[in-house]
Structures are given as structure tokens and as C-alpha cells.
């Protein structure tokens, strides 16, 4: 199942809405990244006011609002203004079209934040360590597996 917010990553968490009359459809699927950043309480409250939880699961369906800040697509098309970082993935198709007309390219070529690079590096090391750990366990090399486990814990704490 895909994440209801970004629509890109695999969902790892399901939030059920407990309310009288709430159907089975009233649940949210979230990926690991969105689960950390998205304020679910605010979103559900907004959903309850309108009688349903706002979500757009189908990827091929055209989004009318950003699922995080509820900015309507119309506002972006009229003023070119976005409400939050998640608007970029919610309106990716429209932004790509706008970029083709109004910008020099469709990919960033400038500087990259240092913290972002660091995080990427740690994530790469972590996934490598996890793979090594699984292999060590399978080959019954427990001493090395123990060392890798400590390394994995350390890398996770850095993220």
C-alpha cells in the first residue's frame, strides 16, 4: 500500500479512525518519512469537521488539495504559491509542467545542504550494515553480527 500523503513510498503505519459511524474506509496509510513529520491529529480533526478523512490514495487521480496543509490546487495554479514541503509531491505533475515553461531545467543543479548529504550518507551506511548483519546471522557468524548490531544502533541514533 502506498503512503496517503506523499503517494510515493510504501506505507508502514495504518492509523484507524475510531468514531461512531466511521467506516472501514476511514484509515490513513503512512510511510516512515511522513509518519515523523505529518501532524495526524490536525489532519483528522480537519477531516472530522468535513465528515470524512481527506485522503487521495489513487496515484492516477488528480489531487485537488495538498493532504497536509489543505492548500487547493487552484491557489497554486493562480498564484504559484505553495503551502508546505508536501505540496511539492502532492502537485508534482503541475509543478513539472510549470517548470518546463518557466525554468531553465527540471532538476536542481545548485548546492545541497550539508545536513541532507550527511543524512544520505548515514542512510546508505545503515542499509549496508543491515544487509551485512542479515548475511552474518544466516552464516552463523555471531561475533561479527554483534559488532554490526552495535554499529546499526549507533547509526540509527545519528539519524
Amino acid at each position, binding site marked *: 500500500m502506498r503512503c496517503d500523503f506523499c503517494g510515493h513510498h510504501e506505507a508502514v503505519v495504518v492509523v484507524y479512525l475510531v468514531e461512531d459511524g466511521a467506516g472501514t474506509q476511514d484509515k490513513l496509510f503512512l510511510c516512515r518519512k511522513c509518519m515523523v513529520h505529518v501532524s495526524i491529529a490536525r489532519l483528522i480533526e480537519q477531516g472530522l469537521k468535513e465528515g470524512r478523512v481527506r485522503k487521495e490514495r489513487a496515484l492516477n487521480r488528480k489531487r485537488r488539495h495538498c493532504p497536509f496543509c489543505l492548500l487547493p490546487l487552484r491557489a497554486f495554479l493562480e498564484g504559484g504559491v*505553495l503551502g508546505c514541503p508536501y505540496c511539492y509531491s502532492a502537485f508534482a505533475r503541475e509543478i513539472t509542467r510549470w517548470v518546463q515553461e518557466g525554468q531553465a531545467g527540471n532538476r536542481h543543479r545548485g548546492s545541497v545542504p550539508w545536513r541532507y548529504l550527511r543524512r544520505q550518507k548515514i542512510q546508505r551506511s545503515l542499509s549496508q550494515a543491515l544487509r551485512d548483519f542479515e548475511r552474518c546471522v544466516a552464516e552463523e557468524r555471531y561475533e561479527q553480527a554483534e559488532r554490526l548490531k552495535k554499529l546499526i544502533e549507533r547509526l540509527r541514533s545519528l539519524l
Partner: protein
Amino acid sequence: MKVFLPWKRTLPSLGVVREKTRIVLARNLSGLPFPSSRFFRPVFAEEVRTKVAEVIAREGKEWKFTCEEQRDGALLFLRKEKHRKIGILVNGEDHLRIFLERMSSLRWADFESVQRLDRFLERFLDYAFDPQWGYLTASSQWMGTGLRIFLWLHLPALSFVYGEQQLLQWFQERPEIVVSGCGGAKEPVAHVFEVTNRYTLGVTEREIFEWMSWIERKVVRWERSIRDVLRNSDLHRRTLLEKLREVGKDIVQDGDTKDKKVLDFLSLLRFGQEEGIFAQGRGCNGVNTRSLVERGLQALPLRGMCEDILEFLGVPLGRIRDDV
């Protein structure tokens, strides 16, 4: 003993073309709505303010910023130096707008100062960044590098000879820049043109700087060559004087005291004085400029851009009254 200075004879222009540069970097913090969102105030606005203020108070003492609260709720950290201002506007159009202003031509050292401040903040704050879209900003016109370089150029000679519309048309032929009046107005006021880069995505910061630097050099050289022609030709000097009289009479007789007309008049007057075409203290002959400007200034709403333009032209209110 009289010293002969050969470079003085070959100086291209007496007056220097007035320029103002503003380098701005737009940055937002990750996981928080932008200031344009309806959920931003008051909770998230406070969070952003606290985060930035903490970093500056704890780690950024060497920057020596003073903190000012703006009318619209934004927070301004500013350091004023002799010829430049460097600062951070928190919760303006984006979470952070790092800027540097200087009343002179574009310099790589200024750009490096802005980048240094950006890198300092980046060590403590998580910026909203996407590998495809670059730095995520509230306005899609800033996404990517988030860098905009604004140049204010005072071009009275070019405007006088070619006309403002012709000049705007020439600028519009260059796809990499956007030209407007001050503060993004459609029509240039006081012959001050604002030039900025159009592209922020798909280009590097260095490329943006080089484009803007090239445009600036080219336009300034062109303006100076026209100024040379105006200064050295009697016919052109007379035409300029007549034009100034004409505008002056319009303002005095018809009571036509629109901002643009008065500021255009002041711009030409200032230009003539700086280039030695008119006398410094007298304004222009044959017109009672004292009463003219005083009347004009009474009707002039000296707020916002007008004040900035007068400051840019180097004519504070008291000075105009004394000089003319």
C-alpha cells in the same frame, strides 16, 4: 607644482552610475508549513522564530546581529556596516530570507558572505530540500537554488535617448532576466530599473551570479557611453534642459504631481547636476524650481518605494529643498 594625471583625461564618465544590489536566499525549515499556509500562524510561526533566535543567540554571536520586530510579525536580524546591510528576515514570505544589500555594483565577496551565513545556519537547522526541486520555497519562482539577485540601476541617459519602453523591450529579449520598475512595478520610476534573474532551477548559483554580473557590466558601460555623448554635445545638453523645463512646467502649471512625473523630474535634475550639465545649486534655469519641487513633494506620498528611490538617488528630502 601641477601634477599631470593622464587617467583623469580618459575617465569615461564624470558621474558614476548609481547601483544597488540585493542578494537574497530563500530557505524553509523541513516538516513545517510555509508562511503562506493558513495553518502557519501562530503555532508554527512561533516555532520557527524560536529555533532561529536560539541558534543566533547561542552560536551566532560573531555575526553581531541586532533584532527588530517588523509590523507584519516578521523578525529581522540585521547587521549594518558602512556600505552594506546583511541580515535574516524570519517569517516573511519564507521561513528565512538571508539577504545582503549594497549601494554599489555586484561583488563576488558579497555573494560569499551570504553563502557563509547560509552555511552557518544550515549546521543547526534542517532545511526543506528535495533532490529534484532543490530548496523548497513558498513561491514556485524561487525553488531550486532559492537565489535571487536584484540590481537597481539608475539609467537616466539611456531612458532619455531611447525611451523607457524601448529599453524595457531590449531587456525583455534576454530570457534569463526579468526587468521591471522598483519593487516589481510595471513601469520604471525615476529611471530606476530593477533587474533580477528569471531562473532558479536547473542552474547553479555561480551561473546566476555570472549572468547578473554580465548584464550589469554591459548596461552600465552602455549608460556611461551615452552619458559621455550627452555631456560633450551642446545640442544634447540643450535638449535635456528643454525636456526638464517641459516636465517642470507640466508639474507647475497643470498641477500634474503624480509620483512618477515628480520622481522622473528629480532623477533628470540629479543626473544633470552629477554630470555637470546643470549647476549644482541652481537647478535648471528659467524655471522656479524651488516652488516647483516643494509643491511636488507635498503631493508625493513619501512612503515605501518613493522613500527608497529618493534615498537611492541620493536626494533626501531636506537636501532637495536646500539644493534646488
